[in-house]
């Protein structure tokens, strides 16, 4: 696989998970002797389109795209196709109308992630009534929309589990903490909250802090479930302050490189969707060990 140059249009570096994905991609490329060119789009689709065009102009061998939104890629991907450069989607899928414009998509299903979280909660609380507060991701971000949708699907049909409050924590610790603080106050000091669901672990880490500062006991008095499985949530889990997280693996590039190499060398056409696992971790999974295994991945 020598002499392959791959251009990677990365969304940005907005979270620890994203940084890990970038780090892992670099490591995977190095392992295979592939030159990886990364362009950071700072959360902007227009920058991603620009980057893809620049990669095409440069004549790279393949393009990886972690699309910031699902729509609007037809034109630019058609250009790549015309230049006979295969495109692999990482991490998120795009609208079905663009199906024939990319080689394969290595993604997780964010609706599914939300559903896993919801189902865990339903199973854990059983028949008890449970008031859930939800920390949403950035308003408008497709992951946030999907994780909300999936969670709602997961708890559907269980009238005892209801979302009582839902605000955006913008995927950040600071906002997660601030929003949780006000949830606690709005819900009578937090006594009526049974569980917190956060669209990512970072917000949950902030929320856990807020709960502790309010004299509440996350992990026991209040259940927590969030998504991403970044190292810090395992630390919290080990301390008994968090209950569950759904993993989103940062290694999307590895399978993608394999698919590209196989395609370039033997013309093997990979399946259209390579789905990564959405594994659920709870405190039963030896959180400290997971923490150790993850802490050097660049999160």
């Amino acid at each position, binding site marked *: 696989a020598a002499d392959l140059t791959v251009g990677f249009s990365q969304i940005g570096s*907005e979270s620890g998970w994203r940084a890990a994905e970038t780090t892992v991609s670099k490591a995977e490329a190095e392992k295979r002797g592939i030159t990886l060119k990364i362009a950071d789009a700072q959360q902007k689709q227009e920058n991603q389109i620009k980057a893809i065009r620049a990669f095409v102009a440069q004549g790279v061998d393949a393009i990886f795209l972690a699309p910031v939104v699902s729509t609007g890629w037809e034109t630019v991907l058609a250009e790549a196709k015309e230049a006979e450069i295969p495109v692999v989607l990482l991490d998120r899928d795009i609208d079905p109308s663009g199906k024939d414009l990319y080689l394969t998509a290595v993604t997780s299903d964010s609706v599914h992630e939300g559903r896993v979280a919801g189902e865990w909660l339903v199973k854990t609380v059983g028949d008890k009534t449970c008031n859930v507060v939800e920390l949403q991701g950035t308003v408008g971000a497709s992951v946030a929309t999907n994780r909300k949708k999936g969670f709602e699907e997961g708890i559907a049909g269980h009238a005892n589990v209801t979302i009582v409050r839902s605000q955006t924590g913008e995927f950040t610790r600071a906002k997660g903490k601030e929003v949780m603080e006000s949830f606690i106050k709005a819900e009578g000091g937090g006594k009526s909250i049974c569980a917190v669901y956060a669209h990512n672990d970072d917000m949950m880490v902030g929320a856990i802090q807020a709960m502790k500062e309010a004299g509440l006991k996350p992990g026991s008095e209040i259940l927590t479930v969030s998504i991403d499985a970044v190292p810090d949530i395992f630390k919290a889990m080990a301390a008994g302050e968090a209950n569950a997280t759904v993993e989103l693996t940062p290694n999307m590039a590895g399978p993608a490189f394999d698919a590209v190499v196989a395609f370039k060398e033997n013309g093997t056409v990979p399946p259209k969707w390579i789905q990564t696992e959405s594994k659920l971790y709870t405190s039963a999974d030896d959180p400290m060990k997971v923490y150790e295994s993850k802490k050097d991945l660049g999160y």
Partner: protein
Amino acid sequence: MTLRQPHSGVPQIIALLVILAVNWIVSPQFFDIRLQDGRLFGSLIDVLNRGAPVALLSIGMVLVIALRGIDLSVGAVMAICGAIAASLADSHSLPVTLAAALGVGLLCGLWNGILVAGLGIQPIVATLILMVAGRGIAQLITEGRIVTFTDPALAWIGGGSIVGVPAPVAITAVMLLVTLLLVRGTALGLMIEATGGNERASTLAGIGTRAMTIAVYVWCSLCAAMAGVIAAADILGADANNAGLWLELDAILAVVIGGTSLFGGRFSISLAVLGALIIQAMNTGILLSGYPPQFNLVVKAVVVMAVLLVQSPKLAGLSAALRRRAR
């Protein structure tokens, strides 16, 4: 010609009271305060505590704006200094950590000041450079991850308290007093107002406008550095990607709500801080209200316009004229 008179602060106080009253309506426990682990606890305290970083920023920003400048880099400076504090906290003592963070803040301010006063670059562009590059520097320090720390001394700055008052609030209050003393206790305030009002005239009157401009940018960055340390201490980690993101806009907004004109001249530090509290009271109110987050921005837009309309001298004039006509 309408020349602005010294500030009375009445419209700002009314605005704050109205917003607090609305918050009380949407959330009846709004004014409840209790002691939790020796620290005051309640929504009103949240307003102060969460408002502290923007209030700190606005303390520095108001001086910059009074000089007809603007500092877009404060958010990035927050990120840099927070990152430094978090990365050093576990291996160094608190004084060293703080000195490093604030020292870098000082350098950032020096850079801005020299670009503006030394090279004569327009403030918005000069500080745009650090706004863009600064966040990169912060991420370079943390390598894009959230660098966490456990040092209780630094953590105290975010979560500790002095006689029940949360540390960030106390620090902001001290900073406000120190700045007031520096600016209003000396002739600096007059000179800033003169320079902001007419720089050429002030230079000819013998004011060292250049050195003063640099000093003001340094002070602004120092305030930002402190805000950055608080933000990092608050979440026990440095989030270089998000710390202080877009807070420069909030700080500018706070200054303007506090009645200081973006065209320089007369300024009021206390009212800028009040402006920051108005913004935070609104944000907290939105969070307490339970509306879906899609409404946040629209509510914010309407409240901001309303607050500014109340202040508009023109509107006061118009309504007075109408009343006269009605009579």
